[in-house]
């Protein structure tokens, strides 16, 4: 990054050679020569490289003072240049002939269309395109020169703190939302395309350029010139599977990957850990990252500003308890499950109590002592309590599911849990009627004690909950 020093330049890429260059050769170009599909020097013939030197490029752009190469990507080469007429630094991106040469006239048309859309994007967090066009068969963009590093370099250099990451993401969101509103999808959000100025501002580069290249899944490898065309790690699944149907939600996915990498230093591949396990962020941030990484489009954030809001609210709350459930997308409502279990549980419990009562009634002919009577009373209450709480839980579950906007399911369980008790009531009530009748018949003097009803001759229609507790002792006591 040191300009204006008298060190020799690499004849291949135009960068200044570092003093400690191995064998006085450009280390970058030496490394590039390691790529299997053609290094910087194509092995075919002649010692010409694939990236024209700044000097060679100057012939095509006499109005610019081109001073060096800023970077090389899958799309082409970016030169550092100065526009003397306007006294400003610019970045000149010249698209590689690999990109432009493939389909001639069709490319020309696509280039004009896309470039015009990019030229319209004016946002503080988007690298501005000043000019674009074609000269001597070279397609180029003249862009704002950003003095800083890209996110990849920043991550590598000093490991971003979670706070810095949480400050960067909303700025990316702003830029993306603006572009999406203009109908432009970036399609290639990755750390290399996120630039950080020296004052810490974010600038997104290469908006929509990916659209200029028609790719097939097999293209996600080295291209002919030893440059990576694109790495699939940041691409939404639908971008790889059906590139034709990509919409703005692909950017949300890619941003999720970048976010995850900023926080953990790793890519979310395979079974990956939640960001909070590897970084000092709240579970709320986990929820945001995971939701943006949803494979299914409909489960992802639908707009970038939703993601931004979620990041800010999760970032401010030390722990975001209400965000946490989103961590598990669409799970069953626990209340509904328990409510549904309670109803049959109450039935079983009721039958057990009844069976015990009958056993006492059938077998014993001695007096029932107070303890047994007490136990029986409690046991008799149990099914009623279960039944009641089951109904309450089911109704609460029902409400919860309806309010969860589709994140919870189990509605059928809640309905079952609410109405099943009614069905349970029928056998229980009839059994109680039976038992009550018997007691009333055998021990008429107890009846007023139990049921505040005077009529002993026929079965009362008691409230379903109260009477049963009393029967087992009574039946046992009466000995039939």
């Amino acid at each position, binding site marked *: 990054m040191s300009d204006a020093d008298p060190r020799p330049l690499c*004849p291949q890429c135009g960068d200044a050679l570092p003093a400690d260059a*191995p064998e006085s*050769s450009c280390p970058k170009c030496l490394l590039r020569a*390691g790529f299997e599909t053609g290094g910087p*020097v194509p092995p075919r013939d002649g010692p010409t490289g694939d990236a024209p030197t700044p000097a060679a490029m100057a012939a095509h752009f006499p109005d610019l003072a081109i001073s060096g190469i800023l970077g090389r990507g899958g799309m082409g080469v970016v030169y550092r240049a100065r526009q003397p007429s306007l006294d400003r630094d610019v970045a000149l991106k010249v698209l590689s002939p690999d990109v432009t040469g493939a389909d001639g006239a069709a490319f020309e048309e696509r280039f004009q269309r896309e470039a015009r859309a990019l030229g319209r994007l004016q946002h503080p967090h988007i690298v501005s395109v000043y000019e674009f066009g074609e000269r001597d068969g070279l397609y180029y963009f003249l862009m704002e020169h950003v003095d800083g590093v890209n996110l990849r370099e920043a991550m590598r250099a000093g490991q971003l703190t979670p706070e810095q990451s949480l400050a960067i993401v909303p700025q990316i969101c702003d830029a993306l939302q603006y572009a999406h509103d203009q109908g432009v999808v970036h399609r290639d959000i990755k750390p290399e395309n996120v630039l950080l100025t020296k004052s810490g501002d974010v600038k997104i580069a290469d908006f929509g350029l990916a659209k200029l290249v028609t790719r097939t899944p097999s293209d996600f490898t080295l291209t002919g010139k030893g440059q990576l065309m694109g790495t699939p790690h940041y691409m939404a699944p639908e971008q790889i599977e059906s590139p034709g149907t990509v919409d703005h939600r692909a950017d949300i996915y890619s941003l999720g990957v970048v976010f995850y990498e900023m926080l953990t230093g790793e890519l979310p591949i395979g079974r990956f850990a939640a960001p909070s396990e590897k970084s000092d962020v709240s579970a709320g941030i986990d929820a945001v990252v995971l939701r943006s990484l949803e494979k299914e489009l409909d489960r992802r954030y639908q707009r970038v500003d939703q993601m931004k809001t979620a990041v800010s609210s999760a970032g401010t709350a030390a722990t975001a308890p209400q965000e946490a459930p989103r961590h598990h997308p669409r799970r069953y409502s626990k209340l509904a499950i328990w409510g549904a279990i309670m109803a049959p549980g109450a039935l079983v419990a009721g039958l057990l109590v009844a069976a015990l009562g009958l056993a006492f009634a059938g077998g014993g002919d001695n007096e029932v002592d107070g303890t047994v009577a007490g136990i029986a009373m409690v046991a008799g209450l149990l099914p009623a309590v279960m039944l009641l709480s089951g109904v309450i839980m089911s109704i609460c579950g029902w409400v919860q599911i309806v309010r969860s906007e589709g994140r919870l399911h189990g509605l059928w369980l809640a309905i079952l849990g609410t109405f099943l008790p009614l069905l349970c009531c029928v056998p229980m009530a009839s059994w109680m009627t039976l038992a009550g009748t018997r007691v009333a018949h055998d021990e008429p003097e107890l009846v007023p004690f139990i049921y505040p009803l005077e009529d002993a001759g026929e079965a009362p229609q008691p409230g379903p909950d109260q009477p049963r507790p009393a029967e087992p002792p009574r039946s046992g006591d009466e000995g039939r």
Partner: protein
Amino acid sequence: MRDADPEPAGGARFATTQWSVVVAAGADSSPAAGRALESLCAAYWYPLYAFARRGGDDVHTAQDRVQAFFATVLEKGYFAAADRDRGRFRTFLITAFRHHGSKERDRERAQKRGGDRKHLSLDFARGEERYRLEPAHDLTPERVFERRWALTLLDQVLGAVRDEFREAGREPLFDALKPYLVGGSPLPSYRNVGDAIGMTDGAVKVAVHRLRRRYRDRLRAEIADTVSDPADVDDELEHLLTSL
């Protein structure tokens, strides 16, 4: 793929072992894995030294730390601390070193190095000399490590290729053809080179082609040695590129 190559006289110059051997051995280090690790450490100690120096250590502290770190690594593999960084020797080294630095710094210095500890013979004097020549830029220690790593790797590879030429008695040819490794526009023509070293231009062309291929294979093999999965070579190459 390495075995067919003549070994350079220096031996340590070109690691004949692979990080995957070390990784595969895990905690129960086999002698082979031990040797593999030792030669990797011997080849790549300088980036760590530069990292420590740039991080503010004085000459002696940096030497002690690097030496103590390698002693620990060679004795107990030091794997538990860096499990998930095992994929690449580079990341393992820097992560484990940082971890080691924070944890054992004081202890190591207090007890000094006992006589029974494993000791790598590292040319610290030369290391310091090199460090003094490091450009006085404002890179962070991590960047210095990454950059130095990439340069060390290239040194190893170019040194090995040069050694091969030297052993075949054709070192001048290597010097003459070297510019073609990188390429660029103002290159001497094959004819001029051929005239200078007494070869036809056709022969020069063939030799350039072979040199490029040889160099690329060596470079890829060297990188393969530092990653556990050979499929990661391109990825690592890309990473190294960004660190320069």
